[in-house]
């Protein structure tokens, strides 16, 4: 079930009503409703993979229980590795099996050996990369004794399958989300209204920005050899806004929906395109994944504690793994590598934590220096997105070559003025809301109701109008 579908528009109010009016007296029943609703939500896409989520949840639930009872370190380690093997085993099989087989065949054929391909027609279960990391965080935290293992299986199942964030995050830590299932949820008007505002903004990002940009980005990337350099730059720019609108839009809808049910999820995006350097970009883009890798990979590998070589090695590892997490294609790995290369100079000169605050905190506009830094960071990010979007490494290389070969300074063949104006307005609203958890959190909130509501009604109408042409799935569903 997609957030931008009529199905979800019917599903959400039904679950909301049952949650607050039928099951509200009993916490266990409320959690059971969340599990049931989440499973229905998932089955809407493909019921066959529901068993995978249930199995994965049960394995980690049982391992959590075993870890409580077991004091011997070797056994505890064994349980931890069992959880890692099961979870990453599923992920590896469904997501990376064909990639490894194809690359082995290519590697062997390079040395003259011919191997019969044995690839399988595997469907990638939606959300597997997200819920796998979520359940892994639980087992690792229990192993490290940072978290008491849960005795309540319903809460645990609800934690793994919580429908707002099941298929594309944010990737919640067990330490943050699981305890929220133990406590009675109170309904707060202001929180629910803010949740609605965030859902509205998320839908706008997805339907009006991302899906419109997708039409042009797809056209330009799929026919890249026929376009001038300036049009190819436009294609990369459209994809840049598409992926941001798509993924941060999903996160906004997920967080907003959770708030309607009395849950708080992590902020996943903090206006990343206003970052002054690539380190700041990575602190504000897909925050839940970046911090997951930091806490469960970078720090266990030694983090920044070792010498320069250790820091460089660990940085490359997390960026490469992050790229590979996005998909079984060399394009994602090179995208990760490029970001590691961007990050390296900042790390080596200890400037990777220079910009911890929000840009232009006390002013309306950034200074000239800040503006130039933002533009520079944005430029290198757009360049990296070419690899992320291209169909193959060869395609990415040709795309980049074509940018510089013909008509880089000519008027682009594709320049939809309506969309460009919409993107400028969208980014202006994002700029105004850069200090908040989402753009609409405080914008116009203090204004007269008529002004505020007119704006919301306009957004809502635009979402409906553009939804007629919106056929794009969320990009991150494929990861």
């Amino acid at each position: 079930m997609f957030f931008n579908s009529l199905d979800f528009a019917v599903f959400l109010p039904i679950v909301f009503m049952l949650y607050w009016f039928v099951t509200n007296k009993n916490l266990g029943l409320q959690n059971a409703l969340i599990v049931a609703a989440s499973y229905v939500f998932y089955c809407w896409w493909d019921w066959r993979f529901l068993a995978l989520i249930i199995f994965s949840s049960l394995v980690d639930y049982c391992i959590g229980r075993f870890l409580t009872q077991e004091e011997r370190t070797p056994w505890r380690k064994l349980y931890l590795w069992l959880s890692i093997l099961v979870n990453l085993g599923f992920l590896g099989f469904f997501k990376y099996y064909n990639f490894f087989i194809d690359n082995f065949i290519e590697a062997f054929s390079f040395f003259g050996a011919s191997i019969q391909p044995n690839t399988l027609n595997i469907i990638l279960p939606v959300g597997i990369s997200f819920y796998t990391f979520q359940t892994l965080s639980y087992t690792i935290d229990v192993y490290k004794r940072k978290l008491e293992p849960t005795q309540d299986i319903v809460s645990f199942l609800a934690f793994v399958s919580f429908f707002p964030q099941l298929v594309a995050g944010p990737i919640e830590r067990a330490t943050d989300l699981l305890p929220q299932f133990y406590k009675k949820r109170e309904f707060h008007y202001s929180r629910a209204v803010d949740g609605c505002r965030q859902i509205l903004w998320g839908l706008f990002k997805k339907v009006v920005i991302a899906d419109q940009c997708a039409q042009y980005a797809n056209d330009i990337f799929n026919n890249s050899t026929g376009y001038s350099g300036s049009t190819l730059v436009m294609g990369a720019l459209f994809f840049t806004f598409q992926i941001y609108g798509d993924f941060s839009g999903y996160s906004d809808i997920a967080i907003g929906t959770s708030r309607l049910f009395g849950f708080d999820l992590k902020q996943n995006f903090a206006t990343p395109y206003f970052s002054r350097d690539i380190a700041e970009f990575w602190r504000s883009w897909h925050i839940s994944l970046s911090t997951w890798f930091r806490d469960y990979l970078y720090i266990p590998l030694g983090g920044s504690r070792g010498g320069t070589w250790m820091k460089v090695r660990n940085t490359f590892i997390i960026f490469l793994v992050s790229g590979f997490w996005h998909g079984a294609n060399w394009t994602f790995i090179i995208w990760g590598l490029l970001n590691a290369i961007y990050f390296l100079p900042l790390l080596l000169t200890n400037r990777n934590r220079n910009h911890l605050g929000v840009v232009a905190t006390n002013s309306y506009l950034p200074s000239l220096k800040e503006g130039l830094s933002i533009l520079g960071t944005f430029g290198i990010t757009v360049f990296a997105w070419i690899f992320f979007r291209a169909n193959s490494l060869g395609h990415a290389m040709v795309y980049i070559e074509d940018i510089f070969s013909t008509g880089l300074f000519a008027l682009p063949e594709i320049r939809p003025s309506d969309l460009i104006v919409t993107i400028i307005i969208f980014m202006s609203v994002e700029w105004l809301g850069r200090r908040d958890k989402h753009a609409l959190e405080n914008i116009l909130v203090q204004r007269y109701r008529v002004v505020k509501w007119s704006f919301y009604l306009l957004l809502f109408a635009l979402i409906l109008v553009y939804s007629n042409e919106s056929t794009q799935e969320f990009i991150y569903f494929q990861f």
Partner: protein
Amino acid sequence: MKKFIKTILIFALIFFIIDKAAYFILVKTSKLQSDKKLEKILEGGMDKELIILGSSRGIGNLIGEQLENETGLTTYNLSYRGSDINFQSYIFKSYLLHNSVPQDLFLVIDNPALLDAEPVLSFRYDRLYPLAHYNEINDTLIKLKKHSIASRYIYCLRLQSSQLNFNKIKPVNNWLIDDYGSQILYGKSLYITNISSKPTDDYTVEEDVEKINSLNQIQELCQEKNIKIHYIFPPNLSSFNKGFLKRFLQLVPDDVSLFIYDDNKSIYKDEKYFYDESHLNNKGAKLFTKDVSDFINNNK
């Protein structure tokens, strides 16, 4: 909770009222279209004796006014550029629903693309979107999964983003649709390619079952309403596909009224009568229309 539900309901109610403004946008933008054929069909009262269905080869190769003068039958060209047989069938059904039954129907055949599963020709949704304020059109779009079922109640869901731009829609290349529904092409395209006078027997396209069904539906409707159907094969500067003709004849009755252009005539081999390899220009269209008129007059 009460306050929240009240707020949501008030918001929904205000939106529901404001949404009605979208109806006026729909009506206004429908007036900005250069092609008003479908609207004429829906409004009814066209009541022609001869109607023409087809794609660009129908709209540009047959001159409605000339046909009317030469055959004495009131004529309207209901062809749409780029339309497939599914769309032509839809137009025909709509016509019959709102207008009196014609005496004759010309179905201009796209040889060899008529039944091709590849989307060379398509269902012209773009002609339906501007008329979505008609419930009938909206229901069709719902059936075709282009509009949500909620669009029955919410007008915003019937709007396309392009309709928020209130500029008059100009016809492609300024080729005007005349009062008889024809859209004559003038001059010559810069690119005339693929010229081959040799007929070919090679017909290996993958056929679309839905398109075969549409062809059958047109035939059944004609039989049911006692409409005489004539299949017109317009001239082509590129090769004539005999393989397709053979296949086509399997799908129509034996006593079919078929008009195939005479490929022995020098005009149909002369580039100066063509806009491009598969479309006649105004000079060619006049001569071809005359040939078709003669065919009809001889078979009256």
